[in-house]
């Protein structure tokens, strides 16, 4: 009996851990070569002739525009750095993340909405690139499971407390923890 209870407690704990680590089921970044040594930092963005998606480079005003920087940070914080483990593009010092932030900034400066910029990265890297899974399909498990567990826990508590109190104060004194029922 005690074993069954311990088991069920363990399982509740396991379920909670599962909920907290919902993202574990999502693919992690692959093992990748180390960051390049001695590659130019931030230098390449001025090579306008070689641009692919966004034709215009940033103007000086845009480079120092705090509103644009804030918008860039907001989008970059929602994107997963491909060469890191569970780190946002905004928080990663890696070269690729820096370049991705520059792409985000240029696309925002070119008039794209944050959603359009995110859609661009999803079209290149798949939904994996979004740190927060979109609420549809199997992803709903991540959103629904915690709610279901909290509700289940509440129901469980109601039942167990009723059971304890129904036994009466005398029985409760005899078996205060309910371990001997």
């Amino acid at each position, binding site marked *: *009996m005690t*074993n*069954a*209870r311990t*088991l*069920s407690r363990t*399982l*509740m704990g*396991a*379920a909670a851990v*599962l909920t907290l680590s919902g993202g*574990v*089921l999502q*693919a*992690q*970044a*692959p*093992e*990748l*070569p*180390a*960051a*390049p*040594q*001695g*590659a*130019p930092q931030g*230098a*390449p*963005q001025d*090579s306008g*002739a*070689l*641009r*692919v*998606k966004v034709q215009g480079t940033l103007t000086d005003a845009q480079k120092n525009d705090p509103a644009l920087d804030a918008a860039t940070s907001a989008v970059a914080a929602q994107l997963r750095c*491909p*060469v890191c483990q569970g780190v946002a593009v905004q928080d990663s010092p890696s*070269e*690729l993340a820096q*370049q*991705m932030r*520059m*792409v985000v900034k240029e696309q925002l400066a070119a008039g794209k909405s944050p959603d359009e910029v995110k859609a661009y990265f*999803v*079209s*290149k*890297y*798949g939904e*994996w690139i979004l740190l927060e899974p979109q609420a549809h399909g199997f992803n709903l498990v991540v959103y629904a499971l915690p709610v279901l567990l909290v509700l289940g826990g509440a129901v469980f508590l109601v039942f167990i407390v009723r059971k304890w109190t129904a036994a009466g104060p005398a029985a409760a004194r005899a078996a205060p923890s309910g371990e001997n029922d």
Partner: protein
Amino acid sequence: MNWKRASIAAATAAPVIGLFAWGLTRDPNSIPSPLPGREAPAFTLQVFAPGQGELSRPVGDSVRLTDLRGKVVVLNFWASWCLACRDEHSALSDVAQSYAGQPVQFLGVLYNDVPDKGTAWIAEMGGQSYPSVDDPGARVAIDYGLYGVPETFFLDATGRVAYKHTGPVTPRVLRYKVDSLMAAARQAAAAPAAPAADTGANTKAGKVQ
């Protein structure tokens, strides 16, 4: 033993264990690319390493992807700091050489590196038969959804991404992919009304690796 409790516990455990078991069947390192089947992102990049002989292009030449329509394109992203790129270097260079004169374009794209180091690396590896272009700011790499190097993209003659290979590529995969894409292009040319056979080639080739 309380059978009611035990069965509740088992009923709780089953989905959790099932979910973990399912998670174990997934390779956390394999991230499917959404690109295969779609049109390859266009680019114009400048040659920094010319290649050799028949396959060479002058340094500074602009390579436009749209100009390569009608050819099978093998796009290999690499860097001089990438160790795995050393493993595939001779495979790529030799196979590219063996397709000289055929409608196939091999192209190296330098990823997060400086051209000088790339040129030195090519010299150290004993030369490369096909040209390499520089990708400043990794714009094209991001456009192709690159995770790291080496990654190799196979584009069909219509300019669509047919297949993406992550990690060092082998001569067998290279030949199989290039042959099947050339065959598909010939088929499409022979029967213009028929839809391109790239999807079939794609699934078949997936088993080769």
